[in-house]
């Protein structure tokens, strides 16, 4: 196929503005997926995505579309996630495209990630096709959306297409716009074969499968490829495209998006953002890669059963391959044994990875309390980074501790201003400036400590604004702060996995909340269990785990012994799913639960 007949684009938007639903309509209209096998939010193929109704990974798919100009186009679409934790996925997809369809929920208007994702697309010089979506909603406000498009995003309103993914409105208009407005694949004339690795996954039968966008040249089975960042060579066994299932093809040519199966077996050998070329006639200049992402939140992940350590290690390697924003390295804990320090882009990301480890890799894990990365200066020493409270040096030796801040763009309706200002204050933040977005909405630019917004900030923002507030953020500067280590003691023994670093003024409140929440989450125990929070040996809060009251079968005769044993056995196995710390059984997802409100 002629490269001029290929278009590469992604769908970007704020969370829930309808990207995946609109993708469904595109797949249907182009007969990419047959009616018989079509499902709602079809591209959300992971169970977790389906269950939670959110997109976690970008999903590529190739469609063919007979345009009104009479020609048959090949359209490579990527549906992207909207949640701020996965914005890195969006930027990777954008790098493999020439254009982006930007959705705006007609009832919500422009929100924080609408702006952030539009900026990402512009920064990569992509053509943006604005689509006002969900126009079927009674609360749709087209006029306001048009105005926001011009005022906030500086996109002429007449470019906007009106659509509804749910009702199937505007689908052809969007496809036509993709063909007409988005330029054909760039850099296709380059003299050497170059393909951008934008994702990979590990398949237990076929090994590492690399997702690539070919910019120039061609790749086919039998070729020898070179990973340009490491010069590692590999033999191509199969190439194919996504329909969205993997479908084998003879060759991937310039402009194509597809997968490459090679004899790479080790997950650590392949890096997202790398450039593939051919070993005969190799390219010398790599494609622009991605900027490294820095995880913002860290926690320890430990196998529940210590002999699952290697299994966990393999799982982490495979997840990392499929998620470049996730980092890990080994560490150990007094309470939990050997495990890994893992870095995430946010709490949702952390939760999703933990779920994927449990489900896709079948390893039961327990996590420690999450932490951001602090910088600690001791007398006469260089600053060090501390992402685990356990490693915080003796307070007596510390000059200062500084903590990461974020710069947040918070979009809210005017009337929520007062409440949001107090929320920002409560979270130790400052408002740098206020911009009017339109007559009804303002944008606050705030600086806030990262560790304050991790937990419930977004929920509170949503509830204060009745769902109309949203936030985007990026990492800001470090600032010195009065921080202390808070220990959690179980029956008077400190448990390292529970330690956290908190602001001194907030320690008591947080300690109380944490003890209370743990007491609630830990199931009733046979033995008396006290949970305490302490700073430097001083108890600041305490609570008790509920005591088990009744757990006895009333009828237990000769004929019941076998059945009874089976029940006890199940009970015992249930307990094994928990972590024994001293006398207490802790549910492995205790901290995820603590952090949820």
């Amino acid at each position, binding site marked *: 196929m002629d490269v001029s007949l290929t278009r590469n684009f992604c769908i970007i938007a704020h969370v829930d503005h309808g990207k995946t639903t609109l993708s469904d309509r595109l797949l249907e209209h182009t007969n990419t997926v047959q009616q018989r096998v079509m499902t709602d939010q079809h591209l959300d193929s992971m169970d977790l995505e389906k269950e939670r109704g959110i997109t976690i990974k970008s999903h590529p798919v190739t469609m063919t579309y007979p345009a009104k100009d009479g020609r048959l186009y090949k359209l490579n679409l990527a549906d992207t996630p909207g949640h701020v934790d996965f914005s890195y996925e969006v930027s990777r997809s954008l790098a493999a495209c020439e254009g982006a369809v930007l959705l705006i929920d007609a009832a919500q208007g422009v929100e924080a990630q609408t702006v952030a994702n539009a900026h990402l697309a512009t920064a990569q010089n992509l053509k943006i096709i604005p689509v006002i979506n969900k126009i079927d909603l009674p609360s749709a406000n087209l006029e306001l959306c048009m105005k926001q498009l011009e005022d906030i995003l500086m996109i002429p309103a007449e470019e906007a297409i009106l659509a509804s993914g749910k009702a199937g409105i505007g689908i052809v208009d969007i496809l036509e716009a993709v063909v007409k407005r988005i330029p054909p694949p760039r850099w296709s004339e380059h003299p050497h074969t170059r393909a951008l690795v934008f994702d990979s996954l590990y398949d237990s039968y076929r090994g590492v499968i690399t997702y690539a966008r070919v910019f120039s040249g061609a790749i086919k089975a039998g070729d020898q490829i070179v990973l340009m960042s490491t010069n590692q060579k590999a033999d191509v066994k199969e190439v194919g495209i996504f329909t969205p299932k993997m479908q084998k093809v003879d060759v991937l040519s310039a402009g194509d998006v597809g997968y490459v199966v090679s004899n790479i077996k080790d997950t650590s050998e392949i890096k997202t953002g790398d450039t593939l070329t051919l070993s005969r006639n190799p390219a010398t200049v790599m494609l622009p890669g991605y900027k490294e992402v820095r995880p913002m939140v860290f926690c320890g992940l430990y196998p529940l059963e210590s002999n699952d350590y290697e299994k966990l290690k393999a799982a982490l390697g495979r997840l990392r391959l499929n998620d470049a924003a996730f980092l890990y390295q080994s560490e150990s804990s007094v309470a939990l044994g050997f495990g890994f320090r893992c870095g995430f882009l946010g709490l949702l990301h952390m939760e999703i990875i933990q779920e994927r480890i449990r489900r896709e890799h079948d390893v039961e894990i327990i996590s420690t309390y999450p932490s951001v990365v602090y910088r600690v200066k001791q007398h006469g020493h260089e600053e060090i980074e501390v992402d685990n409270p356990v490693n915080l040096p003796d307070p007596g030796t510390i000059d200062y501790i500084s903590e990461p801040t974020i710069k947040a763009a918070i979009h809210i309706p005017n009337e929520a201003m007062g409440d949001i200002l107090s929320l920002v204050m409560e979270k130790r933040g400052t408002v740098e400036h206020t911009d009017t977005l339109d007559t009804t909405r303002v944008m606050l630019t705030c600086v806030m400590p990262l560790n304050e917004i991790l937990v419930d900030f977004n929920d509170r923002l949503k509830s204060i604004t009745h769902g109309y507030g949203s936030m985007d953020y990026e990492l800001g500067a470090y600032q010195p702060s009065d921080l202390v280590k808070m220990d959690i003691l179980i029956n008077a023994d400190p448990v390292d996995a529970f330690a956290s670093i908190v602001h001194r003024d907030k320690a008591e409140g947080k300690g109380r909340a944490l003890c209370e929440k743990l007491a609630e989450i830990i199931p009733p125990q*046979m033995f008396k269990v006290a949970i305490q929070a302490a700073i430097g040996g001083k108890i600041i809060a305490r609570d008790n785990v509920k005591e088990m009251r*009744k757990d*006895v079968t*009333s009828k237990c*005769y*000769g004929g019941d*012994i076998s059945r009874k044993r089976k029940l006890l056995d199940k009970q015992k196995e249930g*307990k094994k799913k928990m972590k024994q710390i001293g*006398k207490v059984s802790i549910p492995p997802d205790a901290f995820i639960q603590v952090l949820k409100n």
Partner: protein
Amino acid sequence: MYVHVPFCASTCDFCAFYQTSPTADGVEGFLSGIEEEANLVEWPRPVTTVFWGGGTPGLLAPTDIIRLGAIIQRRLGSVSATPPSEFRSPQLLEWTVELAPASVTDARLAALKEIGVTRISMGVQSFQPALLDALGRQHTLDQVMRAYGRIRTAGFASVNLDLMFALPGQTEAEWNADIDAAVALAPDHLSAYCLTFEEDTKLWVKLSAGRVKLDVENEAQLYETTWARLAGAGYAQYEVSNFARPGHACRHNLATWHMHEWVGLGPSAASQQGGLRGANIADLVEWRARVARGARMTEDRVALTPALLLEDSLIFGLRMNAGVDLNALRHRYPDAPWSTVDALVQRLAEDGLALLETGRLRLSDRGRLLADAVGAEIMESMDEPVSA
């Protein structure tokens, strides 16, 4: 010896026992099946207790009771084949039969007396008509009173009444009234069961559908009042759900909790004998077919290893108020992982869940309410490899 008589007139909502409706063919097949199965068993020692449970053994016609009684008697160590009770084995200490109030007739009681039954256990469950209905029980308060009178008149050595508490909709006052009503009849033994939601029962379905709610705290409180009230009325608790006047504890059940041997006959009946534990298949027709092939104890079959017996001696022994004799067990099973068991015992004692006195371990009242959790801990500690 345990005999499972698998017939019931209808199915109670809470019931998870194997039972079926009594047809003439079914009863005939059952009786001849018991005879054949008894022939398959090796009887290396005299039988000391007999227990007919069900189902509802009391549904059998008097003639069938006599026939079943004769089959059983032939296994009691006596050689004579003529009834009635003069050929009772001198070793036989107790013969219990479970009866449902609706089927207690003078003729049946006479038949039971004739074959040598010593103890009657009657399932009353509640003295509140509304609650009886709610359980799907097929008898009235009137029937209960009349049946009890007849049993007493017939003159059995020991009589037990079964009661149930924590029934859906039952108030604490209603339960106390039930206890009082039971005590007023002056039975020798009382079993008071907290209603359990067994899988595959109608109640379970209601519970899963959210129509009946579990209230653990309420159950715990009812247990406590029950124990206190019955103790006050002269019924000493000797196991989680069992209470007796002096000398009336059920020997048959005590023997099973002590992990002695027993032979179970009939569909679904469990046996523990000759180094094996297992149960018959819970299906009248299939049980007969297997017995005809010489196969019994075909389900859940396990070998009785010393480790298993120790574990069960602890788990089931601790349900009894007298607890277990750790010194004796240590002596009998020297290779068990005693260090982990001792550590657990220590913890239980420290937390007031158990008491350790001169080598006997018994649960406190609080501990007895947690007997399952204690059991699971015991199993867990037994999993630990034996430290050298």
